[in-house]
């Protein structure tokens, strides 16, 4: 089981992702904006962060930058969770230090495995 923080402002996307990940045995905490999401991660470092790049306050890139610059969170896996065009999302995510990208809409059959692929080995 992994502790996953999902930072996603779209309620439908969040519910679907939560349901799949919880069914796969993971613990999921969802935050709907960047400021709350970063604050939560800071106080409760999870095993992985799923980060929507388009958020209504601080956008996902800035949240990723904040996490990457924090000495206690530097190695925390961050996966960009976005509907942006794939090539663009991959370039931006890499530039901001994300470990990878999962594109929306998600493939419900593969989603949990995709997320687990970014977890540190000790969690599996």
């Amino acid at each position, binding site marked *: 089981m992994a502790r996953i923080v999902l930072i996603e402002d779209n309620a439908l996307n969040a519910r679907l992702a939560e349901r799949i990940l919880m069914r796969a045995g993971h613990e999921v905490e969802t935050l709907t904006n960047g400021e709350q999401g970063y604050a939560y991660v800071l106080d409760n470092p999870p095993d992985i962060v799923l980060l929507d790049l*388009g958020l209504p306050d601080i956008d996902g*890139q800035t949240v990723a*930058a904040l996490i990457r610059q924090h000495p206690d969170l530097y190695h925390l896996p961050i996966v960009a969770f976005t509907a942006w065009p794939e090539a663009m999302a991959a370039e*931006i995510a890499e530039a901001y230090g994300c470990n990878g990208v999962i594109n929306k809409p998600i493939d419900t059959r593969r989603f949990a495995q995709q997320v687990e692929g970014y977890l540190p080995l000790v969690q599996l």
Partner: protein
Amino acid sequence: MIDVQTASDGVLVPASVYDYAALAEIYNETRVDYIVPMPMNAARMKEYIEVYDIALDASFVVLAEGRQPVGLGMLGIRAERAWITRLGVLPMQRGRRLGQALMDAMREAAWTRGCRLIQLEVIAGNDPARHLFIANRFVDRRDLFVVRRPPRTGLTTPLSDLNLHITPIAQDNVASVLASRTDCPSWIDESISLLQSGKLRGYEAANADGQRSWVVYHAGTLQLTHFAFGAFISDKMARTLLFTVHAAHPASDTKIENVPANSPYWPVMQSLGYIPTFTRQEMVLNR
């Protein structure tokens, strides 16, 4: 009394009857399937309206059956220029000419207020929107880039020209420095947008020949935005100015909207770690 206009298949009401949170919600719902959704909350919507002179009484929400908001279009106005922005219709409501109704209402509002020019931007690849604007006789003007620069990137090359003298611009002088601009910025980065965004900082550069340039920018808590530049003197001077900015804010993320594709500063920005996120096409309609 609400000014209600009959649209082709819905009614339009001025956006001024909605609060910032409601406008943000309508806007976000119209963008759920957008190429690059950039959602807003109430605070960001308020800031957007204030910084970019959005005239809410000349902006419209379109209502469908049941009086549910299903679309939004905003009009910014400065003197004789207007810009259409935040235009969108909920995915399930498209194809009913509601976008056209919003366009008609905003164009009429702009002309009624004495505007001579309307401008807008469409993200490259949004063909339905582009076709709508072409059908409304908007013509292409130029390409604009939305660019980002993650913190702590591209600063490995040290400053090399000791003949350049860099000084911070005093707060009292920012407005007068901006008044010396000769470029043709997008409305997002016009001097008045910068001044209304506040928290401005800047640097001036002078070389041994007495040539000068400058950069002014908005230094937000987490992000640097709204960059304006003086005359382009040389790559070295431009690079030194930008290097100085980012060295002063090593932890800040940077986002600049609507950098003209032909800006001489763009190659220099790329050398300092800026990356293009997406392209917008600026289009204009003259009265």
